[in-house]
């Protein structure tokens, strides 16, 4: 147990690639928390995918012992949060567990959209914020300009911003001192009944569910019987500890401290993030405000390429869901793709991460159908249906109106590319809310339909701005619009996995684009294939894939029999990997590629 005055709890706020993980590594290294021989890059990003993509997905924690220039020993608790918009919710709840933030900005780049999104969360959580200008070792570094930008755009004082190179170690000591001198110590009553915040939880194959807690009042000890205030469930604490960043058991956690407990809990779903933990006896009845559970906003179908792997896929999804309460799934059957799962995700990155993990960790090749959002379909009888899958769209005669989710998107972009960004947003049915400048960078705010964004908006944005734009969004609610379900018919047969919801005014354009794409994606067959887009029974776009005219081996003699037979077998195997619709084979990549828009 540590004296409250000697504790500093903080997080680091940064845009992707601005050096958050490297800075965390340096703080850990400088204080000797990890021996040099155990040091590796991006120490807190445990998953391969996190390291590879340079992103943090799960919140991670490390406890750092630091003896400051004043001669006093301090305990610094860092909660490292995900930087990506999909995990904004994890960020917001982690922020509630600490009192201050380091705002890390790349001094060669300046403020970006995710910097903004995350720093506003820190401000909302009443954090003391210490600006840190990173990458000062690079020639393009311009600290004065970036400090000015922080003041202009974010509105916080940056005169004392610390200049750091996490790479070379310059400014790391100053950063540690600033944490001690500028950030507040937590408050709490050691004599009050136990009140702890359940910050996060995850599943460990050996220990069961590990619960990350922040003690507000009172003490937590090994052997305690604890109670979850939300449902009254009681657990016996079998282990208490802290992360350094490896797990280290200790005896007691007191007010202001951050650590973990294990209590033979089997499923992550049994632990509600934001819940209040107290003792079974003489506990508090005063619950913390809590968090609302995170809701999936993007849905897509995941199908095994090899239908025989359906059970393996079920197993993989169930295991992943054990550790990720934000990810939902239910079985889905598609005429085209066979058995699979309709899964809900926090966003596109979350989708990609889960899909990558299934493919990589469980070795299952997947077909991913086009992502969809949740539409609110109001029927004439007053009932409202949440539509996760366009294939489930009720008959139009029953529908009164459809509402779609909208977002507020914030985009920062050098003004050279502003025109392209505005065009992209307009093309995606955006409504401009704001346009301001900070130096040569423009900040545009758009109200956009989420369904125009979930698919390839970010890719297009990166491409039209050569990677110079940054983007963040938040959900702002539902609004009615003239939405229709567009079907695609290949050789007169509807292909359910290619159904999409589109705005009526854009249906012709989208339909034409999809038919043209499919014409290129589907290989020629021995007969000609009409490819049509239709709304209800009405065809709105049509292309014809010409029949194959020539596919024959010119030379085939005695020496070729074996080789050509192998080739034939390979082609037969390739044919099996495609999906059959009536007589037509559709390659699996077509299900996603057909929906990508080139503009």
């Amino acid at each position, binding site marked *: 147990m540590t004296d409250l005055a000697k504790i500093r709890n903080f997080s680091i706020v940064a845009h992707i690639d601005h050096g958050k993980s490297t800075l965390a590594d340096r703080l850990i290294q400088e204080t000797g928390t990890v021996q040099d021989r155990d040091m590796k890059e991006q120490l807190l990003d445990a998953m391969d995918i996190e390291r590879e993509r340079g992103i943090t997905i799960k919140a991670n924690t490390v406890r750092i012992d630091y003896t400051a220039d004043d001669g006093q020993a301090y305990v610094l608790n860092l909660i490292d949060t995900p930087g990506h918009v999909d995990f904004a919710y994890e960020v917001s709840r982690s922020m509630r567990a600490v009192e201050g933030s380091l705002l890390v900005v790349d001094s060669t780049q300046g403020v970006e959209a995710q910097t903004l999104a995350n720093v506003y969360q820190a401000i909302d959580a009443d954090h003391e914020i210490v600006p840190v200008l990173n990458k000062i070792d690079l020639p393009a570094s311009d600290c004065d300009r970036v400090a000015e930008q922080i003041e202009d755009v974010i509105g916080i004082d940056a005169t004392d911003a610390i200049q750091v190179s996490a790479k070379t170690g310059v400014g790391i000591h100053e950063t540690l001192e600033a944490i001690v001198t500028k950030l507040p110590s937590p408050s709490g009553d050691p004599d009050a009944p136990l009140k702890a915040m359940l910050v996060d939880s995850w599943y460990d194959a050996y220990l069961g569910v590990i619960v990350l807690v922040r003690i507000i009042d009172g003490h937590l000890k090994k052997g305690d019987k604890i109670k979850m205030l939300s449902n009254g469930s009681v657990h016996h604490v079998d282990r208490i500890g802290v992360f350094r960043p490896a797990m280290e058991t200790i005896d007691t956690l007191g007010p202001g401290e951050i650590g973990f407990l294990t209590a033979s809990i089997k499923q992550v779903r049994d632990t509600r993030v934001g819940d209040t933990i107290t003792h079974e006896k003489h506990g508090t009845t005063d619950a913390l405000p809590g968090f609302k559970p995170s809701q999936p906003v993007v849905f897509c179908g995941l199908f095994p390429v090899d239908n025989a792997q359906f059970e393996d896929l079920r197993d993989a999804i169930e295991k992943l869901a054990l550790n990720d309460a934000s990810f939902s799934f239910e079985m889905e059957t598609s005429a085209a793709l066979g058995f699979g799962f309709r899964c809900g995700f926090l966003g596109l990155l979350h989708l990609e991460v889960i899909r990558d993990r299934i493919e990589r960790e469980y070795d299952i090749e997947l077909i991913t159908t086009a992502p969809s959002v949740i539409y609110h379909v109001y029927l004439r009888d007053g009932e409202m249906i949440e539509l996760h899958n366009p294939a489930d769209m009720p008959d139009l005669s029953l529908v009164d109106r459809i509402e779609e989710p909208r977002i507020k998107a914030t985009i920062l972009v050098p003004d050279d590319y502003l025109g392209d960004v505005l065009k992209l947003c307009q093309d995606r049915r955006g409504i401009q809310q704001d346009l301001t400048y900070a130096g040569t960078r423009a900040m545009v705010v758009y109200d956009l339909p989420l369904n125009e964004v979930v698919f390839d908006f970010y890719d297009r944005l990166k491409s039209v701005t050569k990677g110079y734009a940054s983007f963040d969004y938040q959900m702002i609610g539902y609004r009615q619009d003239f939405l229709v379900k567009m079907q695609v018919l290949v050789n007169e047969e509807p292909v359910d996995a290619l159904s999409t919801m589109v705005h009526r005014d854009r249906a012709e354009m989208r339909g034409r684009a999809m038919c043209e794409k499919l014409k290129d994606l589907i290989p020629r067959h021995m007969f000609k294939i009409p490819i049509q887009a239709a709304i209800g029974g009405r065809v709105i776009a049509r292309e014809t894939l010409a029949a*194959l005219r*020539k596919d024959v081996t010119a030379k*085939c*003699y*005695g*020496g070729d029999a074996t080789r050509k037979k192998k080739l034939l077998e390979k*082609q037969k195997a390739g*044919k099996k990997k495609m999906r059959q619709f009536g007589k037509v084979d559709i390659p699996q990549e077509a299900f996603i590629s057909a929906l990508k828009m080139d503009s």
Partner: protein
Amino acid sequence: MRSQNSSQAVLAIEDWQNAGFGLYLHWPFCQAKCPYCDFNSHVSDHVDQRRWLSAFRSEIARYGALTGGRVLSTIFFGGGTPSLMHPDTVAGILEAAQETWTWANDIEISLEANPTSIEAAKFDAFRDAGVNRVSMGMQALNDADLKRLGRLHSVDDGKRAFEIARNSFDRVSFDLIYARQDQTLADWEIELREALSMAVDHLSLYQLTIESGTAFGARYDRGLLRGLPDEDASADMYELTQALCADHGFPSYEVSNHAKNGAISKHNMIYWTYGDYVGIGPGAHGRVTVEGQKMATTTPLMPSKWLNQVEKTGAGDAEVETVSAEDQAVEMLMMGLRVNQGVDLIRLGDLGKKENFLNNINNLEEMNLLERGSGHLRVTPKGRPLLNAVLRDLLVD
């Protein structure tokens, strides 16, 4: 296979007897490697032809012991460039073949030849050794394209050699490669008309195929092989070739082969009708029925390796594998649907009775790509240029 049915053992023939028995000899050496060629060919200055002759003779004797008593219908010298062989080498090989097997009265003995003056000078000697048919690698009838195809001869060289050949041999075929870079339909028509006016009794007309592992393949992968006709253009050329050849008395009897008055290549017909053939020489393949089992044989690709192995061990095989009944049926279809007569359905054995296979046939018949008649299955004129796709659909489970 019928031979496995012991109750009919007296009457039973082995399947290969439906198609005959041939001998293929591979001469792996060339003066230069052509950029489109993926056959087993090597450039070498020093070839000890006496050593090679002994090795060929030794292999012929070895196969003779496995196939004693058979009548040999055809012999084919392929390569490489077999016209680089010394006529005495050819004569020595044929002598061994004659000692080993009974020759059919109308035995066909073909040799592939480069159309150059040096080789044409040997044509009479090849004829005297026993060769009765040559197949000449003309490839193109314009000099610019011959250069692009990496050929060492000019059009004039080719025509002179061809004149010599038709004086030396009754049966002369030549090859052309079309659908070349920057070739238009009109260009090809002019060239094909000229070829038809020259042709004796046989033409092999191949569309240029870019094979991996060749110089063209490497260039193609790097995007440097430009101007190749697209699918529609090459289909147009193929259709033109079929029509023009038929008009001039050279109807096609196989995907790329055309004959006048039935003067087909009997040796190649053994491959397409799935007979037995012994393959001797580096990289040669064989299909030989031994004790009722169809064996697939291969040999080492490297000339020196094959030669040393034959000399040291007395056998030039790399691999000898039994071809399963099902694989035999697949090979039979793959090869047999290339020719007009198609495949004898009875010879397909169990595959020919599978419901799924029969359904596939019905579907392809409905699309007018396959047809059945006189107990044979064949591709229609519409199906032939799509044969690979037809086979995929025919054999899909």
